[in-house]
């Protein structure tokens, strides 16, 4: 991946890099390149996927406690949170990375998603009794209890609608102004849920206490007996594993959607707007509509993540939704490389791991092994200072992100404009240029 990008960046028509590629150390690389393209393209991703999907199975055989630096590997429960936050980062990447809209209020979408789950899958509304495919809830329980699978979709759609509603007035603004207004919305929504426990006497959000318990996902008793699928996650002995695999599924779905969108007509329009809004408009791209779509898609994945984590935590609480989360997600996008899905995934996993348990674990390891007794430091207390340092260092030494967006060379079959042919094409081109300048003067 990096090599290809360098070719596009540093050399005209892939000529120079083509020469350097032959020059050394690439015995393994050459063997790799002879494999068919689908294998090259997909096998790293599949290997990674298998490694991730089997994590709960081999975690117990990994060393625990006193692993150098990281102290111990994240628990499956932490891993769920990591995956959900990574999903949100990938969603935010659509808004910030693709479309170039600085959104400082993404937490609003997270909150809308979580509360939608709270409304549609809990006993919050005691006045009614509505059950639809819910699992693990007695049939006499009051409140709205809709199957979490459906709630995830509904929450995502409702949040996307919320994104459109927030986007319509704000997306006319550019740059910093947009950032400030989205920051405002990111504050308004949590404030609203904190205070919406008595809207003319109607308790919408249960105020600071939050909505709890929220139903758990599951497949119900009939599928359990026929297919062996878990009836309700929360009642399962290995609930965390089930939540983990589901979260991984959501993340993969998000990644696939984002890749497909990026390579579509809409994705091109987003990137064009990011690159030059005025020119994009002049090329026939409806700016408002396209930006609103970016917002809606970003919100969609924020909503699904919010609803899922609400179900995972069995609750939605206003204290979860503060400004830090927006900034934290933005850090993942910036650290990973704006617009680069794989970069954002890597940065999302690293940063949310640090947040969930990584820093505390590193601190424990440092205290156990490096710092002398009596001079111990609680590393987790310095978390925002540490994140700040990470971002500053990144901006100084690698502003393009961990894995920068590879904006180039979409390999479309009939092209043949790269690969080993490059050098011969280069010559053709020079001949062409000579022909071009051979025109008699006027």
């Amino acid at each position: 991946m990096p090599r290809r990008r360098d070719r596009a960046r540093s050399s005209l028509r892939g000529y120079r890099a083509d020469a350097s590629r032959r020059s050394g150390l690439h015995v393994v690389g050459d063997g790799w390149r002879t494999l068919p393209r689908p294998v090259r393209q997909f096998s790293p991703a599949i290997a990674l996927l298998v490694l991730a999907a089997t994590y709960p199975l081999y975690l117990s055989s990994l060393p625990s406690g006193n692993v150098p630096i990281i102290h111990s590997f994240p628990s499956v429960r932490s891993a769920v949170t990591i995956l959900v936050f990574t999903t949100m980062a990938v969603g935010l990447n659509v808004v910030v990375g693709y479309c170039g809209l600085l959104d400082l209020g993404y937490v609003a979408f997270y909150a809308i998603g979580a509360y939608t789950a709270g409304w549609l899958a809990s006993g919050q509304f005691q006045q009614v009794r509505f059950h639809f495919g819910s699992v693990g809830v007695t049939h006499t329980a009051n409140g709205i209890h809709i199957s979490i699978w459906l709630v995830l979709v509904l929450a995502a759609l409702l949040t996307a609608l919320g994104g459109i509603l927030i986007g319509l007035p704000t997306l006319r603004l550019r740059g910093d102004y947009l950032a400030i207004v989205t920051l405002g919305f990111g504050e308004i929504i949590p404030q609203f849920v904190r205070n919406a426990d008595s809207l003319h006497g109607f308790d919408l959000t249960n105020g600071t206490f939050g909505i709890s318990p929220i139903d758990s996902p599951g497949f119900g008793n009939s599928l359990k007996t026929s297919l062996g699928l878990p009836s309700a996650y929360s009642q399962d002995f290995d609930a965390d594993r089930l939540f983990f695999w589901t979260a991984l599924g959501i993340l993969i779905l998000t990644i696939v959607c984002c890749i497909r969108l990026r390579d579509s007509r809409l994705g091109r329009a987003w990137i064009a707007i990011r690159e030059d809004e005025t020119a994009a408009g002049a090329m026939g791209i409806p700016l408002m509509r396209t930006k609103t779509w970016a917002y809606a898609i970003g919100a969609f994945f924020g909503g699904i993540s919010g609803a899922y984590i609400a179900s995972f935590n069995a609750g939605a609480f206003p204290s979860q939704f503060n400004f830090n989360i927006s900034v934290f997600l933005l850090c993942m996008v910036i650290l990973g490389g704006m617009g680069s899905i794989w970069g954002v995934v890597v940065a999302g996993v690293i940063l949310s791991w640090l947040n969930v348990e990584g820093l505390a674990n590193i601190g424990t390891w440092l205290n156990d092994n490096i710092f002398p007794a009596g001079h111990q430091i609680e590393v987790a207390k310095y978390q925002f200072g540490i994140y700040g340092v990470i971002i500053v260092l990144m901006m100084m030494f690698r502003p393009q992100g961990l894995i920068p967006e590879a904006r180039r060379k979409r390999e479309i079959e009939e092209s043949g404009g790269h690969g080993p042919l490059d050098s011969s094409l280069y010559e053709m081109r020079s001949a062409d240029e000579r022909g071009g300048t051979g025109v008699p003067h006027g």
Partner: protein
Amino acid sequence: MSGQPQEQRQAAPQQRSSDGDLLVAQEVRKEFGGLIAINDLTFTIPSRSIVSLIGPNGAGKTTFFNTLTGLYKVTDGQIVFDGSDVTNKPPHAITKLGVGRTFQNIRLFPQMTALENVLVGMHSRLKGGIVGSIIGTPRVRREERDAVQQARELLRFAGLRNVDNELAEALAYGDQRRLEVARALATDPKLLLLDEPTAGMNPQETVTFMEFVSKLREERPVAILLIEHDMKVVMGVSDRVTVLDYGEKIAEGSPLEIQKDERVIEAYLGQGATQ
């Protein structure tokens, strides 16, 4: 350069003007605060013609371009393009009706490849929606494949070879200019607005570019409105030349008429230059 293209041109005008006017601007006025950038300008572009807009710096040429393409809202007046009123419509709507443009200072999408730049130009002609793109329906795939094919042809047509997958920012200056035209052509325009297309080009590049413009009008049913400072280009390719000064039209006519017009000479060289 002066001889041959001129003869070609003179054969055509009657036939062309009978098609009627593609664009009619009626008393267009644009004020920035107290400054009148365009002062009640009435202006037409016949179908399939090449019209040039010239004038000293600050005469309002680019401002007029921007009002035509919807980038600026007019203060007063009306613009009718191809039978529909486009006054103060948003840029994308005007582009969709068939007005393509380039910019005075090149405005490509630098981090996109040449091919992608052209594909962006096709945006309003493509239909692929969100769900279709995610699922990858055969219709969307086919449309995308055809679009890529057409984009490649357009790049060839604009004289860009083997740079399809280069980032726009990595292209040579002249190629960037060509790419901008290819991108504008991708919007399938009936009217192409070129804002100083030869600025910064050397004489050879300019000649090549003029040949390209001639080829364009022969092969495609497109009218061209040209802002240009290079008089050789203007006099060489235009059917009609309009001269602006301080936002007003001071002269209009064939290149030969304009060359002899006293007010034009005055505007360019100052009062008394004709005496």
